[in-house]
């Protein structure tokens, strides 16, 4: 595989992560527990979708087959998506939504920081902006995780349930394969495995304040990078892609 194709693979993975998580966050719009958080979730969702757009546009340009960012977002099927299983998990309650954000942002902040030194100037420029957005997502999600974990009996229980449910999806963040290794060797993108110590330190710091314990992971849940998804993704893609598929070529 050429470096160009390898970089395309990486950009699609990253764009899919951000599109799917951004869509999940958008599902809270009008449903969040308080107005302040409704806006905060929508803000974070828009950050993610903005990053996804930039990544799809860059991927489409690198691919050079005339596909647009919309084609990549709306006209691929479930098995074509390469996002992490973590980001497609349903919102369920506010605790799960915040913990999912914490896990992802704690990974993306150092990822973007490292990618801002990428040998690919376009990716480096995109990373420099995205790092600040990820830093705020991390701050926001960490403060809520601490308050819910160290809050009332109910909020603490919901936070513990969220950790139990989502923690097995976290090893996928650090998975290395031919794509990540080739790009790390070429200085184009960070090696995800190398970011694990920083991620674990961040989570340990937040969990210590929140009174939470990271469980031992017996069966890591993985497969998103190969297009093997949980049943949740199809239900997300159906409403997300409906308009584009029902009205091909529509503009607004």
């Amino acid at each position, binding site marked *: 595989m050429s470096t160009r194709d390898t970089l395309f693979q990486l950009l699609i993975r990253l764009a899919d992560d951000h599109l799917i998580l951004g869509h999940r966050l958008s599902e809270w719009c009008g449903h969040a527990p*308080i107005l*302040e958080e409704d*806006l*905060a979730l929508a*803000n974070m969702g828009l950050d993610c979708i903005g990053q996804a757009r930039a990544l799809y546009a860059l991927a489409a340009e690198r691919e050079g087959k005339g596909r647009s960012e919309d084609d990549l977002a709306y006209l691929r099927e479930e098995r074509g998506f390469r996002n992490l299983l973590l980001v497609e998990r349903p919102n369920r309650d506010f605790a799960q939504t915040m913990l999912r954000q914490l896990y992802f942002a704690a990974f993306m902040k150092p990822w973007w920081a490292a990618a801002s030194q990428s040998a690919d100037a376009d990716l480096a420029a995109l990373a420099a902006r995205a790092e600040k957005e990820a830093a*705020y997502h991390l*701050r926001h999600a960490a*403060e809520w995780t601490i*308050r819910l974990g160290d809050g009332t009996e109910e909020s603490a229980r919901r936070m513990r349930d969220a950790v139990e449910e989502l923690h097995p999806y976290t090893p996928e963040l650090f998975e290395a394969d031919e794509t990540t290794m080739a790009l790390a060797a070429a200085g184009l993108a960070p090696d995800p495995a190398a970011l694990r110590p920083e991620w674990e330190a961040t989570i340990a710091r937040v969990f210590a304040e929140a009174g939470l314990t990271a469980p031992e992971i017996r069966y890591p849940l993985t497969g998103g990078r190969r297009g093997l998804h949980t049943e949740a993704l199809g239900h997300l893609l159906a409403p997300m892609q409906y308009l584009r598929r029902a009205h091909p070529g529509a503009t607004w």
Partner: protein
Amino acid sequence: MSAETPLWEVFIRPRNGLSHRHVGSVHAADEVLAIQAARDVYTRRGEGLSIWVVPSAAITASDPDAKGEMFEPAESKIYRHPTFYDIPDEVGHM
């Protein structure tokens, strides 16, 4: 809700050289979340460079029933307004 999430008044400094101005209020459990809520509600369009939050309960307000004795005496003192000379543009905001 008000017991767990009290009200905070939000002040934003729009740009260097201008002072913080009251823009509204947010509900939040503590000062850290109040700053985050203020950021998410009131700075979405690049409005601010600095945020202050103050517990609404910490504000002592004048009595609306006393507004006659408080404010009307000033209305007839036109000579207190600095309107009889020009301020040079270079002075900026006053």
